[in-house]
Each structure stands twice: as structure tokens, then as C-alpha cells.
């Protein structure tokens, strides 16, 4: 029986050869390394096309549907709905970031710590559980969607941002104090400036979580449209290619967004690229 190890080493595989064989196979050549994502993507598409179990529509169907949706005018079209959702995503993320940063920064002030803790606990409750609360506070539609997304993301953002602040080594504060920084200067120097790149990481991470919430929120608030409401509508009439087309749109936007955050972090905080290389 020709195992991978015996093929590579010829004849009887030496001790530890299996492990080494796995390492060799797991260590691709330069071409493969350079095109790793493309190769995996191609593999995925191939499996998708030749998959005997038809759980998903074929790529060709989805591509065709995407084209049709692109040509649809007005509130039915791909462009309009993507715009509605993207706007919600950006505005919600902006509000959530500002609110969460403030609450996370306040965690260093003892007076506000209980508040911070409460917000962190609330992340265990599904956001749609607050539907009635939001309904009484906001009119259905745009304001309610923004409020739900902002609040939903903030629960997670506050938790991760507070974690970042809590993990600052005490030595950093002491360095600032010894150098004569006032309390406010220390706060700005060590907490605000010192953690900014990690905060961007947290925002990027939560933007991804946000996409899960957006589709749920738009399913409950369908008046304006948006990708979530379209997915709901298409799946209720069993138009699977259209559903998958929108899922792919979400995926592409999410990847681009993530990439933007990476660029932003590198541009604003070049020292983090040194840390990445180290």
C-alpha cells in the first residue's frame, strides 16, 4: 500500500515520516502560496458545479439571477436594496462605535462601572427580543432599524472594547504618571491613543457580526426594503437563486469592508505593521 509517506521517502517510511509528510503536503510551493485564496475559491466553485446533491442552485443560475436583479428598477432592484442595507450598516456601525467607545472609556471611571457591566450582560439577549421596546420608542422603518442595529452591535462592541482597555498593562499607566502626565493626559495617551488600532480590529470584527443582525432586523422592518427583506421575500416564494445571489452580495461587501479596516489601520498606525511582522 503506497501511503503518502512511503511515496515521498521511498520504501519503508522512517520514524516520524508521517508527520513530515503531512508537513510537506501542508507546505505548498510558491505559486500555490501566492494564489492560495484563488485556488481554494476555484476548488469551491468546482465542487459546487459538480456536486451531485442539489442543495444549492448552480453558479450559473445565481449569476443569471444577479443579472436580472441588477436590471430590475426601483425598490425591487439589486442596486436599491443593496444601497438601503449598506446605508444601514454604515450608519449603525458609526453610532455603535461612538456609543461603545464612550461606554468602554467610562469603564475606567469607578462610578460608571456598573453601567458598563449591565450593557455587557445584555449581549446574551437576542436583539429581536427588544422588538417591543423599540416599537414603543421609534416609528417602524429607518429610525427603528438604526436603533436596533446600533444597540445590538453595541452590546458586543462594549464587551470587546472594555476587554481591550482592561488588558492594558498597568506599567503603561505608571510610565505616563512618572513622566508627569495628568489624569486626562494619561487617559488620552494610554487608553485612547494606546488602544486605537485594537479598537479598529474590534470594530471590524463587530461589523461582521452586524451583518447577521442586519438581515434579521430588515426581516422585521420590511417597509423600506433592503437585502434582509428581499431575502425574506424571495425565500417565501422559494426563489433560491435570488436568495443566494443576495447572500453572495453580503459576503462580497463584508470582505471589502474588512479589507478597508485593514487598510485604515495600516495607514493610521503604521507601527502595527511592524508588530505584525515581528
Amino acid at each position, binding site marked *: 500500500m503506497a501511503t503518502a509517506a512511503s511515496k515521498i521517502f521511498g520504501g519503508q517510511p522512517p520514524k516520524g515520516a508521517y508527520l513530515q509528510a503531512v508537513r510537506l503536503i501542508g507546505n505548498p510551493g510558491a505559486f500555490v502560496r501566492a494564489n492560495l485564496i484563488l485556488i481554494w475559491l476555484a476548488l469551491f466553485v468546482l465542487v459546487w458545479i459538480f456536486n451531485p446533491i442539489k442543495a444549492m442552485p448552480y453558479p450559473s443560475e445565481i449569476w443569471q439571477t444577479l443579472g436580472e436583479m441588477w436590471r430590475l428598477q426601483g425598490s425591487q432592484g439589486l442596486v436599491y436594496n443593496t444601497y438601503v442595507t449598506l446605508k444601514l450598516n454604515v450608519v449603525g456601525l458609526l453610532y455603535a462605535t461612538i456609543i461603545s467607545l464612550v461606554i468602554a472609556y467610562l469603564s475606567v471611571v469607578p462610578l460608571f462601572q456598573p453601567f458598563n457591566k449591565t450593557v455587557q450582560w445584555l449581549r446574551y439577549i437576542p436583539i429581536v427580543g427588544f422588538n417591543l421596546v423599540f416599537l414603543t420608542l421609534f416609528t417602524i422603518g429607518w429610525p427603528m432599524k438604526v436603533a436596533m442595529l446600533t444597540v445590538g452591535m453595541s452590546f458586543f462592541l462594549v464587551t470587546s472594547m472594555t476587554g481591550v482597555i482592561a488588558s492594558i498593562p498597568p*506599567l503603561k499607566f505608571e510610565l505616563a*504618571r*512618572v513622566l*508627569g502626565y495628568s489624569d486626562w493626559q494619561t487617559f488620552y495617551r494610554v487608553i485612547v491613543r494606546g488602544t486605537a488600532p485594537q479598537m479598529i480590529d474590534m470594530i471590524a470584527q463587530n461589523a461582521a457580526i452586524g451583518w447577521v443582525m442586519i438581515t434579521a432586523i430588515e426581516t422585521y422592518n420590511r417597509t423600506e426594503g433592503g437585502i434582509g427583506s428581499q431575502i425574506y421575500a424571495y425565500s417565501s416564494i422559494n426563489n433560491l437563486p435570488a436568495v443566494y445571489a443576495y447572500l453572495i452580495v453580503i459576503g462580497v461587501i463584508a470582505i471589502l469592508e474588512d479589507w478597508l479596516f485593514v487598510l485604515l489601520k495600516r495607514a493610521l498606525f503604521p507601527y502595527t505593521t511592524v508588530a505584525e511582522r*515581528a
Partner: protein
Amino acid sequence: MAEPENDDTSCQPGPLAGAAELHEPLLVVEKLDKGFRLNDGSTLLVLKDFSLTIRDIKDKPQIVSLLGPSGSGKTTALRIIAGLDEPTAGCVLLTEGAGKPPRPVRVGDVGVVFQRYPLFEDLNVFNNLIEPAVRSGMSRQAAKDKAAQLLDEFDMLKQGLAWPMQLSGGQRQRVAILQQLMQDRHFIILDEPFSGLDPVNIMNVIELLTRTANMHTLNSFIIITHDVTSALIISDHVFLLGRERDAKGQPIPGARVMKEYDLIAEGLAYHPEVEDLPRFSEIRKEIKLVEFPKL
């Protein structure tokens, strides 16, 4: 005596404060006690009646060492002298200049070079020096000039634009020292500046600190170390930290300064080849074989 907090009335300048003119006391540490609550609820007394006085030496560089074995309470003493921690009792007084009355120390009065050389990782070397100086009132231009001059002195101009993450351990230590030198403070405490270094680099650091002390005679260095030889080479005064023994020879909790070596009086200060002097070996032997084992 052992009050939980250091109340202000106990921290008034004592009789030492107004002493001799030539050797004016610059830093007076008076009867510090420091206890830590341990996890089992008991209290560990680390410092007891810890006192020391550092006097001005006119126009001479000044380097004093606080020497003691590992775990003897050196870092604890440093943190109190720097104002980072409150003592359980006692106080630290500082004189800001000739004729001025001594006052209790505050954080920021005394520079500290911490053991692991923390820097602001998001600022390059230049800004690590400039920003703190500007924050504490120096003009930006003056700070820039001073930073460039200090970096040049320390042979670090090339690293001016580097991020702290790109520095070697030795370079990092130098930037950490320079960061403290930027501001005109009299005392700079260094916690274990020789630890983790090979003999050649220990000599480099000694040379560097001596040179700095010679160039900046307004700065005094307090070096905290367990390295007997280095302490004797670099210092003009050595304070030996240790504990009293009871009748059975058991150490009584709470360290204090047990012995002070005035190396100026011994003729061992400001001497380039100090290691070759017989008196140097004598004192070193005394500390290593007689004093240290007692601590």
C-alpha cells in the same frame, strides 16, 4: 505607629531637613513601613523603618545604589520613593533646590526607568522623548533640540524615527533612560539596569550611566540592583538593604538600610580603574561573604 494610610501630619520635614550647607540633603526617606496583605489574609511586612538620605555633592556626578538580594524589597522601596505607592507609615521628602523647604514627594517628581523599559509603542523614538517633555511644559522647539542632542550623545540618532518595537533590548533601555532625562528632574531611579545583560554589556551600561551623570551633573541616579560588583563600580554611595535578626538568628520581617558605604570617603568614587584597587576587592568581599548572607 502602623497606621494604614500615610497622613500628612507625620510627613512634615524633620530635623534633618535644614542641615549642613555643603551637603544639603536632596532626598530624605524617613522611617518607611510597607506591608502587603497576602491572599491568606495575613500581612507581609516588607519594609520596616526604612530610612535613607541622599545629599547633594556640589558639581559632581552622583550615583547611589540600593543594593540587596532578590526579594528584599528593592522594587517596593522604589515604588514608594517614586510616589507610585503609598507607604503604610513614614514619608519621602524632596528638596527642589538650595534654600527651598523639603516637601513630600509626588508622582512625577522622580524619574523612573522601569525594569522592562516600557515605552509608548505608538510613538517613534523621537516622539517618545518629545511628547512627555512638551506635556510637562517644555516648548516644542526646545524639546526637539534636546531630544536630538540626547540621542546624539547616546549614539541613537539613526534610530530617531524607529518604532520602539524595532529597537534592540539595549537600544530600548537607552531610550527609556533618555525619556526620563528629557525633563529636568533631579532624581532618576533605575530598577535593575544590569539584569539580563552579559558582562560586556553591563560594562557598557555602567560606562553610559557614568558618562551621563558626568554630563548632566544636575541629575542624580539611584540604581536598584543585586549586582554587588556593578554597584561598587558605578556608585559614590551604596546603601545595603537587609533585615535584622532575632536571638535565634531568624530574620525579623521588614527590611531597612543596614549599612551605608561612602565610596567617596573610601577613595573608590570617580576612579576609572576602580576594580584594580585593593580596597575595592575588600569591600566587595565583605558585602558578598559577610553582609549578603545575613540579609
